[in-house]
């Protein structure tokens, strides 16, 4: 069974993890990549349902059964870090039944800033904070913010509304990240999304062409 590359997307509740996935998938699908999404809902299927409706039902970018919701017993951190076995179980079944997939995106159920993805679960870890949480966030550090493979600072459009200084956030992020990548996004306009997808294609897929390249859809 071939391992399908996996990205873990973590970050506080409401920082925009689901919205970013909804932005990433069309860009990746346009380039021919086939993606599956596992959403670790803390409590409801709402996020998975919204992504399925938008990406699968309305836009046909992926089959409906490629958006999977997973309950975490109220322990979203456990489900992606110390006991990722339920996610692994779902992934193993996907790898067996859908070997043609290029990428699996795992959304965590919402984290505190110390949370990280188990390296056994995700090959690449994107941590999402949002501007509305305050411009203090990057400098507060925490394992997620410091150690992730890509730090995303989302909702830049809200900066003026919450008195957040984006320059301060950029400066602090650069310091905390010590050369590792971070970027600013705005899911309302799509700003920064192309760059984020560039990281995914380069750093996760290693510029591999889509597995289905050449096939007719």
């Amino acid at each position, binding site marked *: 069974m071939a391992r399908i590359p996996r990205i873990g997307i973590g970050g506080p509740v409401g920082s925009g993890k689901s919205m970013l996935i909804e932005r990433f998938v069309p860009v990746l699908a346009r380039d021919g990549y086939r993606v599956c999404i596992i959403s670790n809902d803390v409590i409801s299927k709402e996020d998975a349902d919204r992504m399925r409706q938008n990406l699968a039902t309305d836009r046909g970018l992926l089959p409906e059964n490629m958006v999977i919701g997973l*309950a*975490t*017993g109220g322990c979203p951190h456990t489900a992606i870090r110390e*006991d990722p*076995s339920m996610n692994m*179980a779902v992934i193993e079944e996907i790898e067996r039944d859908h070997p043609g997939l290029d990428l699996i995106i795992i959304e965590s159920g919402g984290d505190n800033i110390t949370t990280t993805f188990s390296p056994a679960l995700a090959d690449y870890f994107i941590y999402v904070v949002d501007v509305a949480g305050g411009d203090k966030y990057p400098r507060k550090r925490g394992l997620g913010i410091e150690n992730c493979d890509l730090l995303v600072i989302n909702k830049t459009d809200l900066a003026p509304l919450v008195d957040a200084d984006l320059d301060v956030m950029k400066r602090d992020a650069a310091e905390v990240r010590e050369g590792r990548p971070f970027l600013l996004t705005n899911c309302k306009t799509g700003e920064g999304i192309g760059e984020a997808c560039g990281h995914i294609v380069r750093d996760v897929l290693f510029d591999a062409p889509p597995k289905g390249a050449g096939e007719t859809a």
Partner: protein
Amino acid sequence: MDTDGLPEMAMMQLSDSAFPAGLFAASNGLEGMFMEKKITTAAELAEFGRACLVQQLGPGDCVILANVIDYSKSRNYAGIAEADAVCTAIRTVKESRDASRMSGVQLARCVGGFCDDEVLGWYLGQIEGGAVSGTYPVSLGICSNALGIEKDRAVIMLLYGFVAGTVGAALRLGIIQHMEGQRIIHDLKPVMGRVAQESAGRGIDEVWQFLPQVEIGQMRHEKLDSRMFIT
């Protein structure tokens, strides 16, 4: 100490709530009953635990587990495959079949990662090939045998894991607080002991379980829009 303690430690390892088999994400039917307001107090929770032990786990999973340990010792592969099929068949609710399979497979893979055992190796191969589904009680039997855990101990471990896991779920659902949880575990110990004794010596063809109210709750649970637990 007159033994090296290894089987006892293996028992603690497999029944530790931190063991990565995903059991933290299961409420074993409790969330469904809670949402239908059928279980809202510590007393009702204790009664739920007792009913599950007596009417589900004792005559069902415990018998399967004990037989799988015998089969593992005698390399009775056909017996193990049959036990796996029976274990799947007695789970009438899809979410509980799925959860048992997911946890069982992950348990087998995890133990297979640090313990070299012929039967476990065979079982993992069968899972890979889709010949068995990899249910939790069967997997626990094979792993227990591989780690030298005796049959009667393994049965206690299964029952205790169920009670501790269900109490943990009840805490997170806000049905009880932590002190009440430990009291319930303590109060159910004699029930677990009795159920374990009663299950001893039964064959696979004597397996049964009957707890329709909980199963109907689970059938509703698997369709809920909002829920915390896989089962």
